[in-house]
Structures are given as C-alpha cells and as structure tokens.
C-alpha cells in the first residue's frame, strides 16, 4: 500500500499543507486532517450541499473532490466568511431571519449564498432558489433561508 500524499494548498487566504490518502475526500481532509470542522457532512454523495466550499472561485461539494486535488488551489470554507469576530452580512441575516434550526445545512447555505451574491448582487427569488437547489435543509422549509439571502443582498448593496 503506497504512502500518503503531501498536498500544498491555500485555505481562507492562508498557505496550508497536509498529508492525506488519495482516496480521502476534500471534506474528510478539511474536517479530520486539517481540523476545519465548520464544513459539514450530510450525504457524502453530492446531493445535500452541506459540504459546500469554494474552490478557485466556484462552489463545489467537497465530498466529491479528492483531497489531493486541492494541490495549488484556493479554497474558501465557512471559517473564511466572517471578518475576524465580525459576522458577514449573510451570516448576520441568517441569524436575524431565523434561517436555521439544527444548523447542519447552514455553513453550506452561507458559502453558496455568498458565492451567488458575489457575482449577482441583486438576484431574483427564482435565481436564489435555483442557485441553492443543490443545498438541502430538512428543518426550515427554505422560505426563511431565501428571505435571509434577500435581506443580505439589500444590506450588502446599502453598504
């Protein structure tokens, strides 16, 4: 059995290197190897979006990325969204709009919503719903999440 692979990457603006087995997903590497446990595992097969991270500017489900693929990439996880102890407007809006209950889906929704608002600051409700179709929530019924994203969009445009 061959050894582990040495991977150098950039996570939330910082250089990170780690050792992993080639079969390990990026999700596993983030949580179990690097210790960034904000990214959640729901389904481990690409359906629920709880494991969403941004990789080279595009959101992906990290359970369907191999850790070794992170080599040379730029990754943003939920830990990279707030500015120190100041929450990002999307995080603030999720709290104010009660857009979470158990919270397992929340990191994925926030990373995905941020990527939407980064490229489309004023999305329609339809655009928000389709953009977030790869994120499942079993608690909220989605409406509060959609309202939180709309609210964040307004706040971010005012800022």
């Amino acid at each position, binding site marked *: 059995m061959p050894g582990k692979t040495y991977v150098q990457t950039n996570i939330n603006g910082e250089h990170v290197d780690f050792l992993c087995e*080639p079969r390990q*997903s990026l999700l596993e590497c983030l949580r179990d190897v690097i210790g960034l446990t904000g990214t959640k595992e729901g389904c481990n097969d690409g*359906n629920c979006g709880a494991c969403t991270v941004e990789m080279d500017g*595009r959101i992906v489900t990290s359970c369907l990325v191999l850790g070794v*693929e992170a080599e040379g990439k730029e990754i943003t996880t939920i830990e990279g969204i707030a500015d120190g102890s100041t929450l990002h407007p999307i995080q603030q809006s999720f709290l104010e709009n009660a857009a979470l209950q158990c919270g397992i889906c929340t990191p994925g929704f926030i990373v*995905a919503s941020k990527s939407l608002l980064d490229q489309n600051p004023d999305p329609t409700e339809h655009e928000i719903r389709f953009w977030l179709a790869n994120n499942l929530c079993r608690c909220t019924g989605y409406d509060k999440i959609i309202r939180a994203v709309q609210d964040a969009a307004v706040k971010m445009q005012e800022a």
Partner: protein
Amino acid sequence: MKWIDYATPHSVREAVDVLSEAGGRARVMAGGTDLLVALRAGVYDIDLVVDGKNIPELNEITYDPTNGLTLGAAVPCYKIYGNQAVATAYPGLIDAASLIGGTQIQGRASLGGNLCNATPSADSIPPMIALNGTANIAGPNGNRQVAIEDFCTGVRQNALGSDEILVSLHLPAPVANSGANYIRFIPRNEMDIAVAGAGVSVVLDNGDIKEARVSLASVAPTPLFVQEAGDAIAGKPANDETVRIASGIARDAARPITDMRGTIEFRQHLCEVLTRRALNTAIERAKENN
C-alpha cells in the same frame, strides 16, 4: 472507499501510458461527480484514479463558425454555458449543461464524464446525438472518432478500451435555419434523474423540415437515437401534423422499463409529449437563427 492511487498526467500520451500500464484497473476522472460516488458504492474494482483535468486537450473549449465546437472532455458545465459564443451557437447543448445537478455539481461535472458514465438518463447525450456529435478518443494506437450515438454500448458501458481516454467532443457548426432543444421530465424543478428526456435538432428550408434528429433519454439501456423519427419528417412542412408524426414514432421506438420513477406506459407517453415540445422549440429556434 478502498485504497486507490492517484495519477495526474499532463499529456494525453502520458495518460494513455498510465492507463495501459494499469491493465484495466484504472479509471479516468473528470469532475468526479459520478466516479467518486461509484467508488464509494463499490461499483468499480480499481486501484488507480487518473485525473484528466491537468491535460490541456481535455480543458479545451474552442468554437469556430466553420469548424464547430471542440469541447475538452473535462470542461465543467458552468464553463460551457458561461462561454457566450458556445451558448449562442448551441442552445440545445446548453439546455442540458444547465440542468445537470445543481450549482455545485455544475462546478465540476463535465459532458465527457456524462457521456463516459453512459447511463440511460444522462442528460447531455440526447442533445449531443441530435447535434451530430462525435467523440474523439485517444489510445495506444493513436486517435479515433466515434459518433455519439454509437458510444454507449449498455448501461454504464461505453466504446472505450481500458487503455483509451476520451479527449474531446466535437459538434459541427450549426447551419443557418437550424435549431435544437433538450427537455426532460422530472417530478420536481431541479436536481433529479430524468424519467424521460428528448433531445432534438431540425434544419428548416423554406418552412419545410430539411433534416431532423431525435434522441431519447431514460427509455432504453442506452440513450436512444430514433433515426426513423427524423427521417420520416424530412421534406414535410414544419407544422403540428409533422411534429405529431415524429413524436408518435419516438413514442413507439421507446423501450422503457417500469421502476420507481415511472411505468412503461407513462414513459411512452412522456416520449411523445417531450418530443413534440422539443421539436416545437427547436423549430422556433431555427426560425430565429437565419
């Protein structure tokens, strides 16, 4: 997932060498949205994943109004619909690229992977058949081309040898007065597997159908090319009656099974309805494209 090794060849030649050496115990990975799920489920017994994403030819996306589209086998969906020239020239292909999975899946999933995965429900295969696509394959003895309709040989089986790699897909340049469309039926609005799907293309000539191609998803062990549906309406006026003829032939050509997604009868009905609607849209698009 059992232990695997990981290789990142930087050229087609190198990839073919690695695949040859592995003697059938390797698979190429593009976006991994099928492969990693399948490996976790124990579908393939392999030792090596060969990442195709560092090979320049697999990332190519070149459109030229004379030579058509060369689409690298690993180009993810979002780069396809994000390419203005491609989106304008091939709306029928974009129909499929923009409905595979959701945003995150489209960040990784490629049409090369959709094709090689060779499921009956693969959404991009019917439109690529309708658009007369070919697969450009490299192996130890050089390159060869296979028509998309001949590429899938069974459920999850394709025409590739274990030492071959799909390099790119080619679509001819759209001619004047041509149009295409792909639609599917799923019980919700997004993120589901086609109960049935129809990909069609037409070329019009003074209000008549000059040429048409019809292909169906999820109603046979492989994506189905219904050549007779297109042939039967060539030369006929582009009207409701003609569209009805082709849709009826598509319905009769479907060989679906009954499963949790739908019964045989429902799927046959869907083939008729989806082919009719897709042909109507393709005809509308052809009228706009002159």
